[in-house]
């Protein structure tokens, strides 16, 4: 990667070692990575290869090893360096939207409230403490819900919605946040194929229409080839491939991962027509 367009994410020499009793796991091993603003990048790897750990480091939720010169920058701001959180990390967190496998919405709050919470990082703290969100902010939340096709459920509790709908609400929260970078950690791993497709399409669309940089970790390479021009592949905490997703044939995957590669390959093709023909997908009424 040349550093010609501004790098949205810069990870340099990042290592992370987990210690549990006498057992140590090297979850990240000198990972270096650069992602340009506006890219949509897939992060693939078998389970345990370090995808979540890398995402949590980039979003400033976890600290790297103190030893070494591991460093992360997002949108030009330092997130952590040498195992220490940067000072303004909360502001950086505000500009990075995170989507989790388990959605991480608050079950008992309405979809609307969950989504409007996206503004917390950008408004005076006290307004957040007393729940004083402006009409504008609420409209923004509703607008975001409409973009992902679930505005009709705005007043329902998050727990009453399906997994796919909750995940789309999480995307809406990132939109309300005004995130310039979205990190999605296995956002479709607990969804049925149809919901998975819809979530991926929403991510692809905000990447295309809003120019938001999207990094999405995926368990199955077929989704990567379909939605992301570039793929970064991890194995045992190391980057083993970084390049165009098209090159990731099943043969190449077996070469990269051996027998463990099988779990990255879907048994059948992903349903539905190719995504490029579906740019008007958001105009269709969303169903449950």
């Amino acid at each position, binding site marked *: 990667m040349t550093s010609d367009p501004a790098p949205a994410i810069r990870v340099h020499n990042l290592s992370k070692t987990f210690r549990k009793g006498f057992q140590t796991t090297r979850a990240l091993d000198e990972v270096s990575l650069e992602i340009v603003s506006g890219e949509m990048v897939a992060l693939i790897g078998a389970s345990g290869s370090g995808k979540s750990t890398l995402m949590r480091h980039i*979003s400033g*939720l976890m600290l790297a090893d103190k030893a070494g010169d591991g460093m992360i920058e997002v949108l030009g701001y330092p997130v952590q360096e040498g195992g220490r959180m940067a000072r303004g990390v*909360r*502001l*950086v*967190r*505000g*500009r*990075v*939207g*995170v989507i*989790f496998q*388990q*959605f*991480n*919405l*608050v*079950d*008992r*709050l309405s979809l609307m*409230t969950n989504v409007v*919470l*996206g503004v*917390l*990082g*950008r408004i005076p*703290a006290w307004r*957040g*403490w007393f*729940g004083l969100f402006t009409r504008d902010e609420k409209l923004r939340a509703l607008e975001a819900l409409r973009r992902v096709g679930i505005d009709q459920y705005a007043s329902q509790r998050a727990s009453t919605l399906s997994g796919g709908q909750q995940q789309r609400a*999480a995307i809406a*929260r990132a939109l309300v*946040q005004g995130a310039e970078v979205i990190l999605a950690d296995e956002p479709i791993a607990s969804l049925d194929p149809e919901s998975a497709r819809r979530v991926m399409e929403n991510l692809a669309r905000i990447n295309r229409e809003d120019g938001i940089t999207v990094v999405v970790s995926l368990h199955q390479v077929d989704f990567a080839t379909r939605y992301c021009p570039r793929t970064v592949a991890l194995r045992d905490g190391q980057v083993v491939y970084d390049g165009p997703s098209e090159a990731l044939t099943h043969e190449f995957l077996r070469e990269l991962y051996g027998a463990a590669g099988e779990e990255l390959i879907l048994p059948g093709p992903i349903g539905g027509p190719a995504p490029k023909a579906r740019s008007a997908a958001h105009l269709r009424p969303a169903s449950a």
Partner: protein
Amino acid sequence: MTVIDNTGSAAQAMPQLQLPERDLKRSLVNLAGWAVALAVLAWAWEGSEMNPLALVQDSANMAEFASGFFPPNFHEWPTMLQEMLVTIQVAIWGTVLAVVCSIPCGILSSKNIVPWWVYQPMRRLMDAARAINEFVFAMLFVVAVGLGPFAGVLALWIHTTGVLAKLFSEAVEAIDPNPVEGIRATGADGIHEVIYGVIPQVLPLWISFSLYRFESNLRSATVIGIVGAGGIGMVLWEFIRGFYYAETAAVMIIIIGTVTVLDMISQVLRERFT
């Protein structure tokens, strides 16, 4: 031939079902446990001067004593009801103040929210508030702020804060951390995390605990009057001291009635919240 041989050996390899053997060591430990338990019971029997025979020997006396309670005398019912209401009022304010204080104290006692140098001192403080019975606090506050219901409110407040803060923090420590992380990831601060990530998760439990403590405080409030902290207990104590057993019986009936009704209301509310 080989096929038959194979199945034959497979059947042989199938392990026989076997009950686990009795473990001698474990039986001995079990036996020792029972011996210790019996020894403790015997030891406590001595100290409590347990004397079941007295129940039989003095049965005539007790029957006479009991007959003094009948028929209950409701002559002074307006005072009795008036004081019963005061007791309810004391229980309400004692509980409400405690709930308000238990929210911050409970959160500051939770391992998953604050560092150890915050939750350790806070927990010890709450332990102290809980260890001292409300009856003792009532006696102290009667000296400090004078006779009357306010002393009762203060006593219930302190003791109940100790109890509720512990229950509240146990609920907080059992939450799902994922939604909290979801909120942190938006750039929210620690207070936002608690308000939007923690409290919605624990609220039903907190409400249930608070109502339960209200029931329990109502029972306590009927007693703390005895040390001068106002309410029906004061009346009760006057009657007992003056050997007015028929009136005592009336007061007891009023207490039972009130406590039962409020317990039932509170239970219905609790069920609605969980």
